């Protein structure tokens, strides 16, 4: 009898502290954007840029604290790129791999370490931007684009000869790979981050003090591993596309 009213009203009642699937919608030119993702992404970007800016003021020959740390980070990222892409061509891909790693790590850790719940939005809640499938799909499409660009840049149209190596029988599988690569990248990251967030919020809902801590620690660890995996896999795909003739 009153089904409609009950449905309408029950949507206003916050019966749980978890708001999954609710987003802060911004409208631009007919498209709806997820505002909460943008807000946190911008904060992460600003933090990364200012760290980079501050870290590179007053560069000295013998590195002091912050410069030392930044150099350490750069060496770590260069290592990832060098191991996957190879000695000769890794240099130009270090910025991309580094940005992917730092952005994903930054957004995951920002989502886990900053008490976003203190700020209440009209709709939806602030959390890690990578818990939204749109973000992760965007990142993996970027990776797809970059390995295509790498392959085409190096080998021209001969890049498509890769599809019939080692045997032409594998052609359908190779074509399928072009779709599964971005799919797996995006879903892996999305699933990990969203699941961790959900588990933490459910635990917090049940027992607010101390018990969620192990899961939060696991979440931090897993999210950094995910950042590493995403960037390493991107580098591996780029390295694979750059392989070319006779370098197997």
């Amino acid at each position: 009898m009153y089904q409609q009213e009950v449905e309408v009203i029950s949507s206003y009642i916050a019966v749980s502290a978890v708001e999954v699937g609710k987003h802060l919608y911004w409208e631009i030119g007919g498209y709806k954007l997820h505002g909460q993702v943008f807000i946190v992404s911008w904060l992460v970007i600003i933090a990364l840029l200012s760290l980079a800016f501050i870290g590179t003021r007053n560069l000295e020959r013998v590195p002091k604290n912050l410069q030392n740390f930044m150099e350490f980070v750069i060496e770590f990222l260069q290592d990832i790129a060098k191991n996957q892409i190879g000695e000769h061509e890794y240099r130009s891909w270090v910025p991309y791999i580094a940005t992917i790693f730092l952005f994903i790590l930054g957004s995951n850790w920002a989502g886990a370490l900053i008490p976003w719940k203190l700020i209440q939005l009209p709709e939806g809640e602030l959390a890690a931007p990578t818990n939204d499938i749109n973000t992760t799909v965007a990142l993996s499409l970027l990776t797809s684009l970059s390995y295509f660009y790498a392959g085409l840049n190096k080998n021209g149209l001969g890049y498509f000869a890769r599809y019939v190596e080692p045997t032409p029988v594998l052609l359908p599988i190779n074509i399928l790979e072009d779709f599964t690569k971005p799919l797996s990248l995006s879903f892996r990251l999305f699933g990990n981050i969203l699941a961790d967030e959900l588990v933490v919020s459910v635990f917090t809902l049940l027992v607010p003090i101390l018990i969620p801590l192990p899961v939060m620690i696991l979440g931090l660890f897993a999210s950094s591993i995910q950042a590493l995996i995403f960037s390493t896999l991107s580098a591996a795909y780029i390295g694979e596309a750059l392989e070319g003739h006779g370098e197997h």
Partner: protein
Amino acid sequence: MENIIRIFNIFAEHEFHKSLSFNSNFLEANVINIALLLTGLIYVLKQFLGSVLTIRQQKVLAAIQESEERLKQAQIRLEESEKQLAQTTMVIIQIKKEAELTAQKVRESILEQGKVDIERLTSAGKASIAVAENQVRQQIQQQITALAINRVFLQLQSQVTPGMQSKIIDDNIVKLGGKI
């Protein structure tokens, strides 16, 4: 039913928020756990990263010092070899000068030799010419004396009788102071 709907309305109006606001429910916002996690994380990271970073700094320092040492060494060697280069160029110049002098001397001595030889040859030539002249003069003199004697002989033969001949001989004996 009315009451239930009214209760629902109260809840709705209480909970529904239309603007950005600050949620002061710390428990809900998980602040305690996050604070604990953050402190734990910072502590662990400081430990771990601290050691890694100091080791890295040391390595960088050592590498810089080593390369500076090598730079110094290389510079010293560069200076030394430059000095040696300067010395060798000087020696080269000296050798060149000496070579020129020796060449000059050799040239002059050869010229001298040449002159001496020329002198000798000319004097030898002159001497042989003189000898030949003498010989020829002697021969001519001989010829002339022979011709002169011949003529005298012919003249005497045609002019001198036996009487004149004995007279000439007697005159000569008287001149010699001898007595006949």
